[in-house]
Each structure stands twice: as C-alpha cells, then as structure tokens.
C-alpha cells in the first residue's frame, strides 16, 4: 500500500484537506491511526463530520503527531487502497513546546519514507516578504520533494480574494513543481487532485 504524506506549514489546511478529500472519495467514516513520537499507536473511529470537529481547528498546531487514514480509490476493475498521512505542521522557528518539536521531527521522517509527498501552501501568506525571506520552509520542502521526484504542490485557500495574485507569485517562486490550486474548505480542485493521486498509487 502506498503512503501519501501531506506536509506544510501549521494552519495551511492539511487536516481539513485530508478529511474532505476522504469524504470526496466516498468515505463516510474514517479510522484515524495516530502515531506519537514514541511510536504509541491509537486508532479512533469517526464519521467525517466528527473528525472535522475534533481534529481541525483555526488555532495553529492542532495536529501534533502523525495521523493516517486508509482510503480506497477505484481504478479499472479494482479498488486500490492507499494511506493518506496527515502530519504536524513545520515552520522555520524552533518551537518552545516539546510535543510540537517532536511532531515536526516525525513529519520530516514521514517525508523521507513517503511514497508520495503532497505539499500544501496557504496562498494568503505568499506575499513579497514571504518570497524574500532568507529561510523558507516551503522552499526546502519543494527542493527535497523535487529531488525525490515524488512531489505535488497544492495551493490552498484559492477561494479567498487575494489568492489569485498570490498564486501567480507562487508559480514563479516554485516553477518546477506540479501545482494544483484547491480549496480544502469548499472542496474545489479535488477532481484534479484525485486524478493525480490515482496515477501515483
């Protein structure tokens, strides 16, 4: 079973994307497997709506460990199972909380072993300052993913008014990546993501 890892900054919409994408693929209930830094596994059964209520928040760093879902996708005469892994958001700073730092380490390790990396960027933060910043985590994920040739960039929050301009900026900033604009909240662009994922599982 292939593992797709969703990475990005805190609050870029990773968890919401995972859950809404699962729902888009026809899943009504999800079994979320949480894996903490010290490899403790817990599995919880949610309906998608419950999971959204419990796991998604507008506060940063809601997700603090690796959370995996097993999803099905019909391909030809078969359905293929794949694992969609949601991770703790990573940023440039060293966080003061232990758990979050450990979560970030987990994220990096998940990226290393992923069959496929889905990188989510929040379009609202793609300002000129963002691009000129000396250390940029998104640029590093991009560089790493491209080198491994298993990379897809999702530009999230396309529904917001300033997103259109920022999308153009992002395109010139990270030119080589396959980029799909989406709205995780309103489920826009999921059809293209589905196609892309289907080709890679």
């Amino acid at each position, binding site marked *: 079973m292939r593992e797709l890892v969703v990475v990005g900054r805190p609050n870029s919409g990773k968890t919401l994307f995972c859950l809404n994408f699962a729902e888009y693929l026809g899943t009504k209930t999800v079994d979320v497997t949480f894996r903490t830094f010290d490899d403790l596994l817990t599995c919880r059964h949610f309906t998608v709506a419950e999971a959204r209520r419990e796991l998604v928040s507008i506060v940063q760093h809601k997700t603090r460990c690796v959370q995996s879902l097993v999803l099905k996708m019909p391909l030809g005469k078969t359905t*293929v199972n794949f694992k969609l892994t949601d991770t703790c958001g990573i940023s440039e700073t060293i966080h003061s909380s232990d758990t979050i730092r450990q979560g970030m*380490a987990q994220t990096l390790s998940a990226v290393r072993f992923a069959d496929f990396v889905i990188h989510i960027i929040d379009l609202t933060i793609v300002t000129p300052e963002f691009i000129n910043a000396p250390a940029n985590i998104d640029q*590093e994920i991009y560089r790493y993913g491209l080198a491994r040739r298993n990379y897809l960039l999702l530009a999230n929050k396309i529904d917001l008014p300033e997103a259109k301009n920022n999308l153009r900026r992002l395109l010139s900033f990270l030119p080589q990546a396959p980029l799909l604009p989406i709205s995780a909240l309103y489920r826009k662009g999921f059809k293209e993501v589905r196609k892309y994922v289907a080709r890679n599982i």
Partner: protein
Amino acid sequence: MERHGKQQQFITHMDPHEVLNAVAAGHITAVSALQQLYDLDKTAMPPLNREPGGDSSRQRVEDILRELDSLIGLTTVKQLVRELYAFIEIQKRRQKEHLRTEPLVLHMIFKGNPGTGKTTVARILGKILREMNVLSRGHLIEVERADLVGEYIGHTAQKTREQLKKAYGGILFIDEAYSLARGGEKDFGKEAIDCLVKAMEDHKDEFILILAGYQKEMEYFLQTNPGLQSRFPIHIDFPDYTEQELLQIAEQMCVKRQYQLTPAAKQAVLTAIRAQRNLGQNNFGNARTVRNIIEKSIRRQAVRLIAKNKTTREDLMVIEPCDILEVPECVN
C-alpha cells in the same frame, strides 16, 4: 541527544536519525534539518520511480507470461493471452492520453476437452490481470453445477450469489458450464444463468467470468441462450494435444519431480497414452491422464526399489519401462 551542544546548529550531522533527534530536542530548525536531509538523502536514497505499471510490474508480467510459455503446445491460446495483455496495456496508455477507450469486458469462454489446460490457463490469466491492476486479488474460484444450483425454488440464486461474492476481485471459473442448461425448462440451472448474467452486468468491474466445457456441448449451450454469446467477447479453443506434445508433458512432469525417463520408458509412456486414448474417445483426459500415468509409475518405481537394500542416487531418479507398462493393466 545531550551530546549535541548549542553550537550543534552549525555542525552537519552524518546520520538522518541524528538530524531528526536534533529537531525534536530543539537544537536545529526544521529548515536546516531539511537542508541536511536533502544532502544526506540525495546520495543515500534514490529518487522514487513513480511510473504506475512501471518496469517492475512489467517485469513481473513478463515472468508470468514466461510461465505460460513453458506450457507445452497451446500455441493459439498463448497468442491470445499475449494479445489480451497488449490490448489492456494499450487501453491504459490511451486512457492516459485522454483518448477514447474500449470498455474492458473480459468475460471468456474456454472450449476444449478435459485435461487440455483450461484451468491452468485461467490461473495464469488471474495472475497476469492482477499484476496489471485489472483485478484486485486475481484469485480463481472454481465451481461446477452442483455449487451453483440449489434444491428448491430460490435456493439457486442464493447459492450462486454466495459463489459470486467469493469471486469478486478475481475470476469465477465454471467448469462444465453447459450442464447449467441441460435439465430442460423446469431445471434450476436457468436460474443460475440468470443470476450470473445479472452479476456480469452489475459487477462487471469486479470480476471476470469464465465458462469452460467441452467443445460440442458448449456450442450447443451458447445456441440455446442467444444472449450469452454476445456477453462473452473472448472465446478460446483448447485443442487436444498431439502424442508428441503429451510425451513432452510427461518429460516435463518428470523433470519437475526430479525423475528421469529412459528412452525405453518414453516409448512405454507413448504406448500407455495410446492405450488410454483407444479406451474411450471422450473420456480421454489428455494431460491429466499423462499425470496419472507418471504418478502411478512413480509409485511402481518405489515398490520396485523398496525390495533393494541399497539404492544409488541414480536408481532413485530413473523410471524404467517396467514401471510404466504395467499401468494400463492396473487401470483395467
């Protein structure tokens, strides 16, 4: 982790695990960790080959096709399987280019006498289709009339559906399928056929139905149910083996079991095959009869050897004509 000081931020780690631990301990930022991982993994971990149905899967299909090629005779069948493989592959590539594709209806009819390799080929097909991601499991469920037809009204559909459920993700192989239509108007076999036809349409993406049986009976069966013919786009004929092919099969079976046939023993096998063939035209089991001959001779060889106190390695492997020639007598 305590070993890393504050200055660790500027030291490159040699091991990816150390990098991750340093992130967890708060010694370095995720940015510099990714930079270091990039350098470390660039050499250590090769870029992933994401091509679905890429080299490795094609290699596996080739391996299975080679297994098919190692079967003796069956030239037309082999050709057809290769055709099928090419067809599916090209349909997939066309789909990638957004060209129009033919729907993959792969229900089949196998016609041939018993022991001509129908089940073997069906098994290999299952494996190939699994590797090509056409079937999710690629297993073979082999059933006959008795597994499908029930005892009272309504029981048949229940039983048939049960078998179908087992077959989803693989192949449902119905041996002697013509017997489903044999009993006349009131027979429950009709009900089974109706149930199968419905499943073929409703679950056409989940399984492949193969009907197998003798040539003449199958043709009669298809004539009595005009709807069936068109629902099975692929018909494969399994011709009887020639004597030479049967002899080759016997040799192959011996090699697989690590036995050897002496030239005289080969002649004896031929005689035994002829004798069996003359016994009854229709009941002749082709390759299955050959297997029985060989297995029986292996047992006879064991009886012959057990009398000896000492046996060499060669003794244990060689099958003599006297082991074989007695076979037809035993049958009678």
